[in-house]
């Protein structure tokens, strides 16, 4: 029933990395948070009973761990604000124009996501990971309708944030 630690990480490493990115902008802090999330997921795997998908289960653990991490980092300055780290995304598209455009869009998106209130941030990022309304509702402990309302607000805020950034 329960996958091994190594299997889970090889399958969901990117997913957990994106959770870390949605809370921390600085590279070193992202790495630190990702490690904390990984430890929490490992601890949580032993309690996984299989009554939900492993993806939603570890996402819940990851977001909870991230919230604790960010709150406890309050002494450190600018732990989740946009910094120069956001401009370091590697080029992966063929056209230089598209590359720049994608990089900027991604930087604006991440910046806008990190500026969202927690609940909106969690609902939006879970949705962007391909979770259905039902799954987002399960991870967050909300009703499906509530998820819809929060998601609509989050998207509106992200659009506004992106437009302001441009």
């Amino acid at each position, binding site marked *: 029933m329960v996958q091994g630690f190594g299997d889970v990480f090889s399958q969901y490493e990117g997913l957990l990395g*994106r959770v870390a990115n949605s809370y921390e902008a600085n*590279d070193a802090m992202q790495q630190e948070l990702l490690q904390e999330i990984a430890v929490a997921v*490992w601890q949580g795997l032993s309690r996984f009973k299989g009554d939900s998908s492993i993806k939603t289960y570890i996402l819940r653990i990851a977001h*909870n761990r991230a*919230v604790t991490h960010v709150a406890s980092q309050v002494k450190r300055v600018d732990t989740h604000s946009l910094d120069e780290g956001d401009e370091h995304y590697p080029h992966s598209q063929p056209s230089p124009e598209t590359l720049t455009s994608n990089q900027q869009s991604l930087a604006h998106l991440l910046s806008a996501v990190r500026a969202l209130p927690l609940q909106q941030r969690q609902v939006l990022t879970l949705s962007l990971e391909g979770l259905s309304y039902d799954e987002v509702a399960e991870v967050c402990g*909300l009703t499906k309708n509530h998820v819809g309302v929060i998601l609509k607000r989050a998207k509106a805020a992200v659009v506004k944030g992106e437009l302001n950034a441009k």
Partner: protein
Amino acid sequence: MQNNDELANLWQTQPTQKVDVEAVKKSFHQETTKQRRYFILDCLAMLPGAILLITYWAEFSLLAKVMIGGIFLLSYPIVGYQLWLRRIAAFAKSDGTNDYLGQLSKQFKNNIRIAVLNKHSAWSAALFLWVFWAVMFFTGELKDEKILKTVVILVSTTIVMIGWYIWADKRKQRFQREWQALQDMKG
């Protein structure tokens, strides 16, 4: 602005960090060991006082026994209250991220209360010791040859208690900042 699929596609293109599996394993074992050590320390912390009391109980006068008994009776509800405040961290089980946010917020509040409790128990414990030994001195129960030793112990204990007070105050401030950061993030 992109539609939902475009936004999701863009989201998926972000580069991510790699998990250092060896560091995770090391950290996991360290955390487990740390929690076990705290548990053992909590249990052992009461031991020296209890041993001293059992050993010297017969030598105490009625007045000393009443004072020590009084402080012990007073300490039980305080310890009980502290354990009650720790219950969320120890036994909480959240049904979702939303539930967790509420619990974390409560836990920060309780941590502030625990820190305040520790802060005030530091000076009150030191004050009790000074009062206790002053009473022993004025009632003649503190023998002359033990005065110097007692003063050394009292001064050392007071220094430790001052350190404890400062530590508890710093923790209180830290938890207040963390609670405030959480409220700010909740929006």
